[in-house]
């Protein structure tokens, strides 16, 4: 089907003898917001790391935007259009906001191989525009990340993914460490993405948030997908039952056994 943006078939990852992820079959359509839930160590982050090629999968097939892909590293995945906010924020503490936004894909004033001259002005202007677009308020984006609060850092990380026209955005627990107001701001950014029709995979432990923001919930347990639930057809209790292992959807029963 043409409107499937990402599809994984039999995605598997072993760390030595540990089967962190087994035979994960997953798909997400254009414009769809899908939540991934599951207990700690259920394989959620591992799943994301295989898609974004931060790690190389043990086996399985990934189809992105209609083509089978084998990314060699996160830059490959990013160039193909997958933007990720990682659980560990992936920001450089001693650099400022616009440096971080453009880390690894700096705007260049004058091309000179590795010694290409940076276009600071262009990057700052683009940063200002990006922060406005996403509604992120940061008092001074010339400030270095180390002097910022957890919420501000998170907003920078999310603004980074929202700045670049991505085909798929992935957020790994974006509000885990945030206060009420900060969480609301992050959720607003997510809604902006939804309005713009940009697909999103959201990893979260927050049931209210998931029910608020997502169309579909995929539950991981012990490295396997055990449920694929439409939001309208489920509720919090039901999802918890899948997470804890009280329930397993029939089509996944064999895998979870």
């Amino acid at each position, binding site marked *: 089907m043409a409107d499937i943006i990402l599809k994984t078939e039999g995605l598997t990852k072993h760390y030595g003898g540990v089967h962190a992820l087994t035979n994960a079959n997953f798909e997400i359509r254009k414009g769809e917001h899908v939540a991934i839930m599951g207990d700690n160590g259920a394989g959620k982050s591992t799943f994301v790391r295989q898609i974004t090629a931060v790690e190389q999968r043990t086996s399985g097939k990934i189809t992105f935007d209609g083509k089978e892909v084998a990314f060699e590293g996160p830059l490959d995945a990013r160039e193909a259009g997958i933007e990720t906010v990682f659980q560990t924020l992936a920001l*450089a503490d001693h650099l400022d906001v616009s440096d971080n936004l453009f880390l*690894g894909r700096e705007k260049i004033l004058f091309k000179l191989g590795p010694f290409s001259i940076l276009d600071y002005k262009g990057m700052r202007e683009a940063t200002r525009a990006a922060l406005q677009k996403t509604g992120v308020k940061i008092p001074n984006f010339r400030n270095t990340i180390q002097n910022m*609060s957890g919420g*501000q850092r998170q907003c920078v990380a999310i603004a980074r993914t929202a700045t670049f026209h991505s085909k798929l955005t992935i957020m790994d627990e974006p509000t885990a460490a945030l206060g009420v*107001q900060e969480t609301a701001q992050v959720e607003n950014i997510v809604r902006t993405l939804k309005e713009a029709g940009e697909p999103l995979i959201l990893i979260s432990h927050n049931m209210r948030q998931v029910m608020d923001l997502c169309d579909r919930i995929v539950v991981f347990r012990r490295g396997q997908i055990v449920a694929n639930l439409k939001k309208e057809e489920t509720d919090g209790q039901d999802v918890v039952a899948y997470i804890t292992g009280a329930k397993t959807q029939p089509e996944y029963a064999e895998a979870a056994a």
Partner: protein
Amino acid sequence: MAETTHGIGGLKYDHSKRERPQELNVFIALILIVAVFEGLGFWLMGQSFLFDSGDRFDSIFNEARLQIIILQVAIIGIIAIGVTQVILTGGIDLSSGSIVGAAAMIAMSFAQVAEVNGFPNPKGIFIEQGWVDLPVIVPIAVGLACGVVAGGINGALVAYTKIPPFIATLGMMVTARGVAKWWSKGQPISFPTESYSKLGAGMTPVVIFLALAVLFHLILRYTVYGKHTYAIGSNEAAARMSGINVARHKVMVYTIAGVLASVAAIVLSSKNLTAQSGMGVMYELDAIAMAVIGGISLQGGRGSVIGTVIGALIFGVIISGFTFLRLDAYYQEMVKGAIIVGAVVLDQWRQNKGGKT
């Protein structure tokens, strides 16, 4: 405009409370140290440390002493620039002193004259092969190539075998010193061509040091290379996830450090008109000390070449100051050690204070 936009939770940002740049702190330290020596000078010696007190010069400064201060740190300063960018990535380079030794020996052996006072060069290494009286570009190219090879090996070891930089460069430190001794079986190599001997004559080391300092300041501040150097030292995992080729970048950083060490080797051997296998012993530690005194954080990501240059000047002022006060060289070393430790303690303390969020 002291306060601007409201942030998350209505936070305000006060521009006047901005952190003071690290370089300024280091510069203030330099001024304080000079002031201490001035005070001690008037008290103990009855003369000024840096100012012209005997009316010997045209300006108000004691020009001779200023020249000595900068000249004696220039060569190690060149190494310190390279070491600075290595430390910025969170690494360390212990091999630069030995690379100076090896590169000086090898470069010098291609810079020799055929005849000294009408006799064949008594120290000639390549007389049989006829590799004497070569154009000056040959020893320069050979010397720089030594730096590329040694630095490249350092970088490859750090980047691809993932052994700690301390161990990788410690290995190179021992190996390169071995090469320096083996090259001429321990014999000094002397009698360079006239053009080679000009490379380090007079104040040229200072000119080269300052030119390289400006160049690397610009590179670290305004190029992709510089940005990635800071990013790797600041958060290596983040740099990798942002798509920076961390391994390749580290190889570049260590290679450039090796090249700068070999530049120092060429300048030093030219200045001394001879190369010996023991050249550059302990230079790596002096270079690291200059960087650390200049505010380069050993944890990476913090500091600048300007800091290192001021660190080098502090270094020079202290050595000169002790000589000026006619204190023994033994005391210099003791105090040098204390200053290095003190600088790191200060850095640690600052990090802890600044790291709270």
